[in-house]
């Protein structure tokens, strides 16, 4: 049972420290390259597990007639059709370099069924989901920008200035200001707020994140945080 934790921990610490050192030493640079390749292989293997999980989850939703089982059926149908079309390279023409091999052509173009699915089904659906963001931004802004107290009022005014300053309306509204007061024009105020207050706050958060990343990595590499270790078997 000890080996169940000690072996993975030793691999994590050893490999992690080696990777960290290889970033600074040129002769060990190949380690990062190999790690990248191994990661791709492991990801590809894990994808099979993912596909299995997807099938199982949707099949059980359909068989139990859970709420929204119809969506599971559509997901499953789309998955299987895309899989068959893609793996079978259906409708792919031979490439000019290997005309004798029927499936040697590229299937990423919209002329092939696989490319068609990507271009005219997946892309528009993704764009539709992304477009919904506009409505979510509106509802979130409506809630966030209510002047409930002094701090919220400052936030509201600042947001108003920045929003106006980023549009042509902001330029037109304060274009009449004389040169000596140009700093008060909305577009300049907006740039000032974003460049000084926004950047300062953003950088402070970024420094904290960088240190947090370093500390988290060290906790894992030094074996202080072992919560990621599997305890299968009650170890």
């Amino acid at each position: 049972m000890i080996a169940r934790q000690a072996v993975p921990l030793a691999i994590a610490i050893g490999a992690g420290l080696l990777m960290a050192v290889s970033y600074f030493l040129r002769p060990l640079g190949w380690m990062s390259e190999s790690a990248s390749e191994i990661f791709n292989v492991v990801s590809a293997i894990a994808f099979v597990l993912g596909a299995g999980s997807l099938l199982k989850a949707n099949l059980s939703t359909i068989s139990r007639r859970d709420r929204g089982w119809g969506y599971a059926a559509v997901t499953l149908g789309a998955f299987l059709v895309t899989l068959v079309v893609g793996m079978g390279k259906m409708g792919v023409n031979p490439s000019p370099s290997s005309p004798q091999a029927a499936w040697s052509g590229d299937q990423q173009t919209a002329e092939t069924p696989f490319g068609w699915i990507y271009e005219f089904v997946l892309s528009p659906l993704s764009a539709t989901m992304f477009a919904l963001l506009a409505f979510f931004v509106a509802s979130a802004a409506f809630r966030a920008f209510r002047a409930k107290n002094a701090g919220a009022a400052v936030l509201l005014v600042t947001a108003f200035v920045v929003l106006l300053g980023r549009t042509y309306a902001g330029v037109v509204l304060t274009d009449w200001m004389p040169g000596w007061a140009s700093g008060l024009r909305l577009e300049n105020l907006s740039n000032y707020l974003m460049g000084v207050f926004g950047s300062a706050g953003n950088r402070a958060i970024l420094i904290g994140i960088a240190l947090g990343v370093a500390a988290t990595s060290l906790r894992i590499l030094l074996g202080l945080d072992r919560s990621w270790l599997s305890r299968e078997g009650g170890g």
Partner: protein
Amino acid sequence: MLVGAVLGLARGAAAEGEAESSDPELPAFHEQRLPLAAWTLGIGLATLVFVFRSRRGKPPVIRRLAALDAVDEAIGRATEMGRPVLFVPGIMDMNDIQTVAGVTLLGRVARTAAEYDAQVEVPTSRSLVMEAARDAVQSACLAAGRPEAYQPDRVHYVTDEQFAYVAHVTGSMVRERPAACFLMGTFYGESLILAETGNHVGAIQIAGTGETSQLPFFVAACDYTLIGEEFFVASAYLSGEPDQLGSVQAQDAAKIAVIAFVVIGTLVATAAVIWADAAWLHETSDFLRSAVGARP
């Protein structure tokens, strides 16, 4: 999780080192990376010092984080309402440290959920994350003394496609109406869609990310948000172990060093502009710039 985390974290450095590693003319050590090596060693040493101090009975006092104190409340609410808890570990793979931090937090959430007898749903957008999340949830159920609470099908893969994943998760939110939503990891354009949908279904929402561009959306739409570094200390905070708390103290010590560098660097750079003839001021300014990896 192990393979993904270790290999994945090294992946980013691969492309950079690819061209140089085979050139025998170049020195073995990357001189330009010396400041980074010094900072890494410094933080590593500080971590060791504070961990030993903490072990000797001087654990640091960490300010309370409302978002983490609310974890129990959120899971308790889900138990009372008989609704599931939704945990979204971001949309990136295990080569992203935020995903690693998110999955670590999932372990803590799953443990509390197992103790309270609440169900945790974990849809993932990467197969490796699914495997890691299953490990974390299984370990948590074992640690809680309720191995039978582990249901692998509740941790499932959806798709790698960003907005297809969002469509699944938001649809599932509307149908299942989870009582608590945890959004912990790397998020991009989908952050507000997920958080607003959670808000509409009336869930208690706790979010955490290191993506600064997404933080305002989480702050606007969630009940609690772990901002940047808070997200990374969350695991240590929840564990309460002296070792891990000691590492948080090292993080704070490094932050004080950075603040000192910023203040001293600003003063020296300003003085170098005022007294342009003072060569030593320019040399000091250049040294401080190089010490933080900036170009002189």
